[in-house]
């Protein structure tokens, strides 16, 4: 009988705290959003289930959780805490990204830079409310709308905030179709939303092969801190564009990125133990993340309008919002909002240019913040 009573005390039911219960509900909500609403299902499903796993309370003597040294989850989490998984995901992203639209209209690259204002202005906001510069840098990168970049930088600058930052980054990426449209409509007139852009030209094979090599050299020489992320991104793209390494490119963009995404999402979710996650800091991070996203979207749209002051062939300012990365969701949002104003206007191809430029921009921004803020 004693053994049975002792065992009952080790069950999750007995040890459940309100915090654990709250996190379990959040995990279930993530899974529901992924399955029912198809909001970033490839990410929210593993993260949601990871949250369930990470919030089942168990006896302290049993090393089971992410933070228990020697546990399986602890070893899997090593890929996150040491920043190993994000570059591998970037390799896969590079192998599946088509930079042709960017190559056909190089001025659109600047929209990817403008949208990074969200990162740096949020950094100021985070410092203002009491976060240290390193923490503020890690929080600001949420505005880059790039989950792997956010995880990579927070692992380097503020590992204690990694769980909250990762969850915030992926949540807002999933909510791109909800967050961006009101800001885009607020900052543009109907006439601006109806601007039709010239069809992009076809990039040649030489251009597509030379681009990843040259862009890597430019970015890595200007901001060496971005070396790992940018290097893997462009290496993956070279594998794709060279066409002589199809096997490698196929593996990078299918099996490898899928495996890493599963592991990354799952252990990030499992790292959200209620004791570590349900803090005032996490709430502030979520608030700042939303602010960062909103600023990034607004900056992209406003910069497109600013560029239009000097351009003969106008840019539809809606595609500026795609500069926040979140590939390809923010480009889709530009297409949807543009389509509402003019059903015959198709912005998707044009929006992909600032979208992929945003990936480069956020990786460079992460490199800069890492270089400047690392102690």
């Amino acid at each position, binding site marked *: 009988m004693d053994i049975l009573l002792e065992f009952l005390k080790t069950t999750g039911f007995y040890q459940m705290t309100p915090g654990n219960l709250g996190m379990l509900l959040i995990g279930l909500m993530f899974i529901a959003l992924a399955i029912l609403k*198809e909001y970033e299902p490839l990410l929210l499903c593993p993260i949601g289930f990871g949250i369930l796993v990470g919030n089942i309370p168990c006896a302290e003597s049993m090393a089971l959780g992410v933070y228990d040294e020697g546990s399986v989850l602890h070893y899997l989490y090593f890929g996150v805490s040491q920043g190993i998984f994000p570059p591998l995901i970037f390799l896969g992203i590079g192998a599946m990204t088509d930079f042709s639209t*960017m*190559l056909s209209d*190089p*001025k659109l*690259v*600047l929209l*990817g*830079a403008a949208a*990074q*204002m969200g*990162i*740096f*202005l949020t*950094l*100021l906001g985070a*410092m*203002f*409310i*009491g*976060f*240290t*510069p390193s923490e*503020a*840098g890690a929080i600001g990168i949420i505005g880059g709308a790039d989950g792997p970049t956010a995880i990579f930088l927070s692992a380097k600058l503020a590992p204690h905030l990694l769980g909250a930052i990762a969850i915030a980054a992926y949540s807002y990426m999933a909510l791109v179709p909800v967050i961006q449209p009101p800001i885009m409509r607020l900052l543009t007139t109907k006439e601006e939303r109806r601007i039709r852009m010239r*069809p*992009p030209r*076809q990039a*040649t*094979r*030489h*251009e597509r*092969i*030379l*681009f990843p090599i*040259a*862009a890597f050299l*430019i*970015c890595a020489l*200007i*901001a060496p801190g971005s070396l790992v992320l940018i290097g893997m991104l462009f290496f993956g793209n070279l594998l794709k564009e*060279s*066409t*002589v390494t199809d096997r490698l490119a196929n593996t990078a963009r299918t099996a490898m990125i899928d495996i890493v995404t599963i592991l990354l999402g799952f252990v990030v979710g499992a790292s959200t133990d209620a004791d570590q996650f349900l803090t005032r800091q996490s709430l502030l991070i979520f608030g700042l993340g939303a602010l960062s996203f909103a600023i990034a979207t607004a900056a992209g749209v406003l910069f497109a309008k600013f560029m239009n002051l000097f351009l003969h062939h106008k840019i539809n300012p809606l595609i500026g919002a795609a500069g926040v990365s979140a590939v390809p969701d923010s480009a*889709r949002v530009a*297409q949807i909002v543009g*389509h509402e104003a003019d059903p015959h206007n*198709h*912005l*998707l*191809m044009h929006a992909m240019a600032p979208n992929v*430029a945003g990936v*480069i*921009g956020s990786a*460079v*921004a992460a490199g*800069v*913040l890492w270089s*400047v*803020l690392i102690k």
Partner: protein
Amino acid sequence: MQLLAQAGVPVEGPLTGLRAITEGNGIAITITGLLIVFAALTAISLFIGALPKVLHAMGPYLPVIESHHDMPPDNGRAAKVSSNEGVDPRLVAAIGWAVHASRQSDP
């Protein structure tokens, strides 16, 4: 920290407000960061803009890049299916949009 405070020892909390930004070099980090991001992407933009002209000038000296992707397919139908040459990008965008809209409406 609470114990120190209870004992009457003055304890400094985290810096907040403009003082935190000033002492943490927030403005300098922001300006530097934005400048570097813009410099990197402007350099990429300029490179992309110059690339077609450079390639055109170097045309005679450039190697012809061939791979199995460039080999002519065995039958004409396959060529039409596999090649994007001559396909109106607006048509591709429209098809992409239709697929997306269909997926969005799918419950």
